[in-house]
């Protein structure tokens, strides 16, 4: 639970970052391939992407590497890693293959992380864009609404939402999206407020483009870098939230995820610590990789850092 405030602070700090220079860069039709190259040359991004691709590949190959249902009882219970060659990472309290759990769990964890973030970002952008673009009483109303979500401790709200609606993949994704959209909404709003005062937006208005066109084609592309950086951190946050929910027994009981593996291994922590340590290690590495990626993107796209300023 404690990760949330930290990440929110981090997001808030970054939200102030990507500024005018980026906007101008995009507005000035800077060569897109050059900024992509800059991003890919950043060592943090490279390390982060490499780790994430490796985990992604394992997740994709899970049905080939460990065929069958990862929830099936595969062998004797509580085997240590390496005790039997067939189970290189051992078996859990019921005799399920830990390797199969970790690989298939990667699919669930990544799927939840990505889809919850995507949903949260879409909701956040829609609401934030309307507030930031139109301003006035619409803005006031939406900001109050966002503040309601910001004042409720997000993980507590998430637990209540999921417990109330019954734990399943869908409710977990919806729940995480519902407690994380507010960060994106706030960020989008501030970007839109700032950008809609810019000359190129005024120009678009003069030309006669409608609101929807201006929002989608003029302002949004310029706000994108900030949103991408925040989004990458949100994936890490969603992954942790899913793990925490599963740990508390509020994950989808029909799906193996890293969090659910930790949750069911917790009881055996004193005698079979590897049941907690192995999926825990995967969570740590994934969250670390996502943070590296976010930091790298921030370095490249944030104009306050030297290199980024040169994009324009």
């Amino acid at each position, binding site marked *: 639970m404690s990760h949330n405030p930290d990440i929110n602070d981090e997001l808030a700090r970054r939200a102030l970052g990507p500024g005018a220079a980026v906007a101008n860069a995009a507005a000035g039709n800077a060569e897109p391939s050059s900024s992509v190259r800059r991003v890919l040359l950043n060592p943090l991004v490279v390390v982060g992407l490499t780790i994430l691709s490796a985990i992604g590949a394992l997740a994709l190959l899970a049905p080939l590497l460990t065929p069958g249902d990862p*929830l099936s009882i595969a062998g004797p219970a509580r085997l240590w890693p390496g005790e039997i060659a067939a189970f290189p990472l051992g078996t859990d309290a019921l005799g399920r293959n830990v390797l199969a759990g970790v690989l298939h769990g990667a699919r669930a964890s990544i799927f939840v992380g990505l889809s919850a973030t995507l949903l949260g970002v879409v909701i956040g952008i829609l609401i934030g864009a309307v507030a930031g673009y139109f301003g006035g009483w619409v803005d006031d109303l939406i900001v109050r609404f966002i503040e309601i979500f910001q004042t409720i401790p997000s993980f507590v709200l998430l637990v209540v939402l999921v417990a109330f609606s*019954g734990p399943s993949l869908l409710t977990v994704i919806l729940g995480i999206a519902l407690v994380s959209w507010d960060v994106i909404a706030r960020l989008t709003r501030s970007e839109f407020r700032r950008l809609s005062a810019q000359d190129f937006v005024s120009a678009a208005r003069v030309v006669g483009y409608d609101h929807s066109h201006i929002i989608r084609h003029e302002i949004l592309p310029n706000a994108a870098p900030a949103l991408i950086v925040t989004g990458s951190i949100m994936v890490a946050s969603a992954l942790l939230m899913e793990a925490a929910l599963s740990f508390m027994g509020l994950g989808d009981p*029909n799906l193996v995820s890293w969090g659910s593996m930790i949750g069911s291994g917790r009881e*055996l922590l004193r005698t079979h610590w590897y049941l907690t340590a192995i999926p825990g290690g995967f969570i740590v590495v994934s969250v670390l990789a996502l943070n590296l990626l976010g930091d790298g993107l921030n370095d490249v796209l944030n104009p306050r850092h030297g290199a980024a300023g040169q994009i324009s």
Partner: protein
Amino acid sequence: MISRRHFSQLMLSASALPFIAPIAVRAQQDEPRRGGTLVYALNQAPPSLISLVSPGVERGISAKVVEGLLDYDHDLNPRPQLATEWDISEDGLTYRFKLREGVTFHDGTPFTSRDVEASIRIVSQNHSRGRASFANLESIETPSDHEVVLRLSKPAPYLLRALPADEVPIVPAHLFGEGDPTGNPALTAPVGTGPFRFIEYVRGSHVLLERNEDYWQAGKPYLDSVIIRFITDGAARTAAFETGEVHIGGGASVPLSDLGRLIDENPHLALETRGQVYDAGVNRIEFNLENEILANRNVRLAIAHLIDKDYIRDTIYYGYGAVIDGPFAPEVPYYTPGLPHYEVDVDLANRLLDEAGYPRDANGVRFQIRIDPRPLADTDRPTAEYLRARLAEVGIEATLRTQDFAAYVNRVFTERDFDIIVNGITNSFDPTIGTQRIYWSENLRRGVPFSNATAYNNPEVDRLLLAAAVEIDPKTRFQQFADFQRQVVNDLPDIHTVSQFRYTLYNTRVQNHTVGATGINGNFADIWLAD
């Protein structure tokens, strides 16, 4: 070293005696010693401290302060406590008790038959189990200060076992004179005749009891005081036992996953499995017979042939508890061995499902089903996960649903929106009180938790249950319950897996903690601390 599985078998069989004898012999070489403070851990803090109006966690505390009419040996034979003699008329309708003379409550008032009358009246009207035990009670008479007569409308063959201190506590009538007993302050500051007097209850922390200097059993109790600590976290209780901070705890003091390690690593900690008769229970997989698919006995039979109860006991219960085939735990007096047993046979299960008219479709799936494990016990969800894995092997696609306890009770017993539940029930001291509610067709009552959830309705079972409820001949009654068990196991409204493993975990300094059927829920008058 004896393996844990072997160990638990030993403890549950009659041959347990030779194994535990060395500990017992060493303990009893010394004479009981006066003095010392016993620290006793409970998993939860109860709303009241005596079990006068509810049979909950308070049963662990009640008897130390407030005594009952009778006490019981390990075979449930009654022994005198506040009643010194008792007599049942031949028709089983009149119970006469002679009461102990010269006993006073902790506040100095003498104990008389009026206190017994008031206490039984309160229990029979308020206590959920007491209402069942005294359902046939017609009148209570008090011919003299030390004589009580209970008159019944129908025989109640279980009544003599229903009177231990933690089921029917005898409280002073003058404190429970008028008004609603459930709000009476004496529930949380109890006054009784027991070996310990109540000193203080610090909510969320502990209860302090001190030696009753005027106890009617001269020389007892041996302890100066008892501290009852409420430790809700399992890992914290484990640590408290390891450090010696807590001396004794009952029920399920530590997670089963910790128990073996704890006993192996700590020579000063030991297990006692006797003294659990009043809490014995069974774990079950129940079918909703109103579900069209599960109404087919062949489908249930197929599922029965998939479940490896030895695996459940060894893996999910860490080798503790006994594999059972019927609705009674082995500790229960009417337990019948040799019931029908369904061997694990996947081929047979597949064949039965084919014959039942549920062939596999193109994806190999026969039908879909939902499983709801009871959210209270650590073992029910793994059992449900095991069941799902086994069902998948024969093409039954099962989905687990998890929810909190209130939602579970509402879904199963009120909305009846379930297919299979993983559940557990306590047998209690008699099948009429503890088991009839599960299988009697008239107890299919919406909104009543832990009633007949399966919607089981077999007139023959109803007849046996109702006949046994009023049968005073012990042999006939035993046969009725044996027939009942066989019929239930044959009909398969549910599958019984493993008996609930309950135990007393104690520091080897604690002597004489389990001297009768009520075990650690007894009065602690005999407990003493060795060096």
